[in-house]
């Protein structure tokens, strides 16, 4: 929150305001559509009718300026790596990153000179999801882990 970030002692008001802010942020996560390869299909299927992501308030936005979650879904090649970093920097704080699938987590099966071995060499990652590709339920599990992180982040309290 700018200059008010982490400046106050924990008391009744500040902890409750933190709780309300954490709850409202976790119920309204807006990811950026950043599907790079096959994991993108599973992300689309998680947003479709059978495993609906819109139930949790998740609304996919196209512009990085309005998104707060970056789901890196797919293999990160060396050619797209500067773009991933640039898109990450264009997002406003507070922002989170989910690395979806084994290729984004650690390069996966592609141990080669053209593939970045894990997107956490480029951006800091909060939740890793394994699987090739992870089922939509696994992506939903990852989003629940992220919601737990968001709800317990301290905003005003030191």
């Amino acid at each position, binding site marked *: 929150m700018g200059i008010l970030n982490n400046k106050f002692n924990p008391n009744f008001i500040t902890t409750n305001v933190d709780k309300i802010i954490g709850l409202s942020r976790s119920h309204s996560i807006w990811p950026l559509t950043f599907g790079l390869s096959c994991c993108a299909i599973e992300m689309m299927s998680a947003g479709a009718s059978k*495993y609906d992501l819109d139930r949790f308030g998740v609304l996919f936005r196209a512009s990085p300026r309005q998104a707060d979650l970056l789901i890196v879904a797919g293999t990160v090649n060396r050619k797209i790596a500067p773009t991933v970093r640039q898109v990450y920097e264009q997002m406003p704080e507070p922002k989170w990153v989910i690395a979806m699938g084994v290729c984004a*987590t650690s390069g996966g099966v592609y141990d080669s000179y053209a593939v970045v071995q894990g997107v956490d060499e480029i951006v800091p990652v909060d939740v*890793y999801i394994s699987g090739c590709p*992870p089922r939509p339920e696994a992506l939903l*599990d990852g989003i*629940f882990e992220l919601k737990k992180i968001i709800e317990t982040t301290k905003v005003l309290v030191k």
Partner: protein
Amino acid sequence: MSTRDIIRKYLFTELLQGMAFTFKNIFVPKVTTLYPYESVQMPRRARGIHYMREKEEGLTACTACNTCVKACPANCIALTKTKCPTGKGSIAEEYTIDLAKCIFCGYCSDVCPYDAIHLGHSLHLATQGSRESMKADLPFLTGNYYTYLDEEENDAYGVNYGLVRKFSDKSQVRLQED
């Protein structure tokens, strides 16, 4: 042009048909599976997190022959070998599958000569820790085996998930020595 064509062109009947279809769809029952409260049943052969069979209590079936290590396309299995405490032959002391690299292809289970490593159907694969915490070691894999052994549920096609018990008995009969 016939009257029907004129009506179609100027009164836009196809547009209204499309709108009627969408309107009817509001009253059709919803197909969503409410995930954390209900879940979809996976087939018996779905490839999820692995489990390692045990011959007896505390004695794993893996003899550290390294066939799965060589067959894995992603090079994610690491194991160490030690002498079997009961009887002759070798046994695996540490067996780690790096789930951050595994692509769940099932080759390790296809080539294992002792029917030790198999793939189960669980899919809960998300973690907020570091990448190093995503390694599945031998106690974890053996624990998975006992979970499947007690399983009574059937999959969506009526096949029992706990079929692992019958499978392991058959391989016990087939292999006479280590």
